[in-house]
């Protein structure tokens, strides 16, 4: 027994040696310093600093892994400091509107910053500028109703006039963005789209008004879908209907059409149920390539990119939308996403949009 006991003890010590060394560092001590600067000429260059800081711009950091979100405004040097962060990857979003009325501009930028191995991450966001439109996309219902039959034909896009003057829908193009990871999206001066549907009338015409505070619903098919799936949306009273005249699309004759302008894409306005973007442009200019239609940024009125996961790569330039709507919204959930308030727009859908348990076509 006496000879065996040291052996037993040694075996036990070997077993507990499987344990790990206690780390010396603790989590929750990381820091992110974000400098927000302007290179568009909207803000003057500070001769002392040597760059154009954007003060009082809201900077938001959102952890990709954790349920954590924090926002701060930059100081006069354009600097926002986030202390006591835990190891994670963060999406950093800066957004601020400047000017008023017809001269309202949005300055925004976004970037992914990680603090894993290093304790302090320092990064600079260079904001792009976008003209704010009075006509915005207020709600996108893309997930489809709760069903097992792969039914999603009750999709719709809702537009809203957020100004106090009458606007016009003539010739406006509603597009589904292409779904490619393009490394040049922040360089290109256009957005690449897959489908394009256009309101009747000439661009910038004045035949089809939208009154201040009015919602306009454009249905994929203006039909009472609850006749097919009990909890689907009744869109028989939609204001407009997407219509693909080249592909034999079903048409509600009582509802005016927003028509497909691409004869080579003979499908209805169907958008992805998980991740995609919808763009509206004034229709004055576009270029058709082999597969896509390029919409110049200068003609874009609004764009919203949505994604179930916040960690997905952006497919549309942050100059049109710096964030994602619909984070957490799953396909065939019957849920929808709309702006926090009618027309609220900071050019960042992460901040601007909320989830709805049920779609609200034609109302907030």
């Amino acid at each position, binding site marked *: 027994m006496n000879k065996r006991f040291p052996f037993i003890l040694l075996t036990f010590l070997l077993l507990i040696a499987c*344990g790990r060394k*206690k780390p010396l560092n*603790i*989590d929750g001590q990381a820091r992110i310093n974000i400098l927000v600067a302007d290179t568009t000429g909207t803000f003057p260059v500070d001769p002392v600093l040597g760059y154009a800081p954007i003060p009082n711009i809201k900077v938001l950091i959102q952890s990709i892994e954790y349920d954590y979100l924090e926002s701060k405004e930059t100081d006069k040097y354009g600097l926002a400091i986030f202390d006591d962060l835990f190891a994670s990857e963060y999406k950093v979003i800066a957004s601020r509107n400047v000017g008023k009325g017809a001269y309202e501009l949005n300055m925004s930028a976004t970037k992914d910053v990680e603090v894993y191995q290093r304790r302090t991450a320092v990064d600079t966001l260079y904001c792009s500028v976008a003209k704010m439109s009075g006509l915005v996309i207020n709600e996108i219902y893309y997930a489809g109703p709760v069903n097992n039959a792969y039914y999603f034909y009750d999709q719709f896009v809702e537009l809203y006039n957020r100004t106090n003057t009458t606007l016009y829908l003539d010739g406006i193009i509603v597009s589904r963005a292409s779904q490619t990871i393009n490394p040049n999206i922040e360089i290109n001066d256009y957005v690449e789209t897959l489908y394009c549907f256009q309101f009747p009338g000439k661009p910038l015409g004045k035949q089809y008004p939208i009154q201040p505070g009015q919602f306009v619903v454009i249905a994929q098919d203006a039909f009472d879908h609850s006749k097919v799936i009990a909890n689907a949306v009744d869109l028989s009273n939609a204001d407009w209907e997407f219509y693909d005249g080249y592909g034999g699309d079903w048409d509600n004759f009582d509802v005016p059409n927003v028509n497909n302008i691409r004869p080579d894409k003979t499908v209805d306005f169907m958008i992805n149920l998980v991740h995609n973007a919808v763009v509206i442009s004034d229709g004055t200019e576009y270029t058709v390539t082999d597969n896509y239609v390029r919409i110049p940024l200068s003609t874009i009125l609004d764009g919203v990119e949505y994604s179930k996961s916040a960690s997905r790569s952006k497919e549309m330039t942050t100059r049109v939308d710096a964030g994602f709507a619909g984070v957490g919204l799953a*396909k065939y959930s019957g849920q929808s996403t709309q702006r926090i308030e009618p027309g609220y727009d900071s050019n960042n859908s992460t901040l601007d949009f909320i989830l709805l348990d049920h779609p609200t076509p034609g109302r907030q």
Partner: protein
Amino acid sequence: MKKIGCLFVAFAAIAFGFRPLAAQLDDPHLCAMGSVRYVLTGDWNRFNLFDLGNNPAWLHEKNTPDWLRIWNNNGYTRGNFRRLYDPAKINSSAISFAGTKRLNEKHTFLGRVTYFNDQLIGVPFALEKNPYAADPFILTDSSSGGYRFWGPDIDVIYSRKLSNRFNMGAELQYTLDSAVRDEEAMVRIVQRNLISRIGFTFKLSGLVTTGVTYSYKNLFDMTEVPKRQDGRVPVTYRYRGYIISRRELKTYPRNAMSFHHVIENQWLLKPVNSLVFLLQAGYHFHYLDLYDGSSVRYYEAYWQQNEATFNFIGKYSRPGSPWVCIGFANGNFSSDWSKHYRLPVLITEQSKNDLEYGLGISFQPGHHVYRMGAEISVGSGDYRFSDYIGHADFDAKILAPEIRLGGEYFFNEILSAQAGVQLRDYRLNGEMPYLLSSNLQNGLSFGLSLYQEKYLLEFVAVFRRDNPKAPGLGQRNHFELILNSKFNLH
């Protein structure tokens, strides 16, 4: 013998963090007598290395005749005074068959099969059976739901006498239980618990006996999140710290694999006829891996605990005297930490120091007349917990004096009644998310026993009420009924 049989004792033990002297928990007699568990003697708290030292090697030396036991208990817990993740209601029931067989002068077996059914109703957020287990990780979502855990628990103990001085023993316990949550997220939980223990005892002299045990415990806890047809992922938050959870949008099963090594040394000393001591000291090493059950295993976090324990009991009783005096002390000192699996950074850190000491006295004027006992104890605890992700530090001290009174009255040779009272003043000073706030616990127990030469029948009822000291927190009631029958096979 380790299946919790008496909520009364078990709740106190769990709340205080003591490793209970598990064997005695099965004894309905002790439960009926106010859990006066040191100074009053039952079937499973005798002064030997098996009952109080948990050493399987001493089973043979306990020298009990062969018996068979059928046991049933039903427990009910109700009331709003509870912790965040505690169920609103608990209905638990178990039926157990156990028996001992002494094969010859060298070999003894003890076997037990228990089938249990624990119904947890209205569990807020927690997607776990034991959200307040030692590790800090709690899988949660944003809804409430219920579980019905059921499954078998099998325990086999073998003891062999190798020589007049040397005994060895081994124990194997296997528990399997599972449940499906009755509300979103309808997770399925499967727990498999394996405990193996090996023990040796050695009589150094007629006055001193020592023993050593090594235990290996392995708990596998799997939580499956069902993928809904509509594509929604019902689990929205997962573990990591108390204040901030990790967002989760994937449906991979979550696995927790826990390993626990324990080495314990027991000493039984009998310096004179009237005095006997039992001392046990143990060292526990416990670690746990959390990982997703995806095809490429994604490790989430790691947790490790080091723990030292001791139990001391000293008993004084002069031969022929009806009085017995006992002193006891239990200690449990642990520290644990968890870390990010890949990064060398601590997520949480915790230390717990528990100490309980007390005295007991009993009086038994003769055989089959009556007996009564009283114990007074003071428990103290000092807990510190830091959640580095959530930037939350908790610090709490516990002081919990307790009085237990119990007795048994024999109407005649075959019939006896037991009764007991238990009062505990649980004072929490500070804040600790996994501890109840200060409360007064009042317990009453009652039992009836029918003895015959070949069998024993027992009925026990236990009631306890926890009254919080702060107003507006409601109260918590526990009620348990035990039916026990034991048959002598010799």
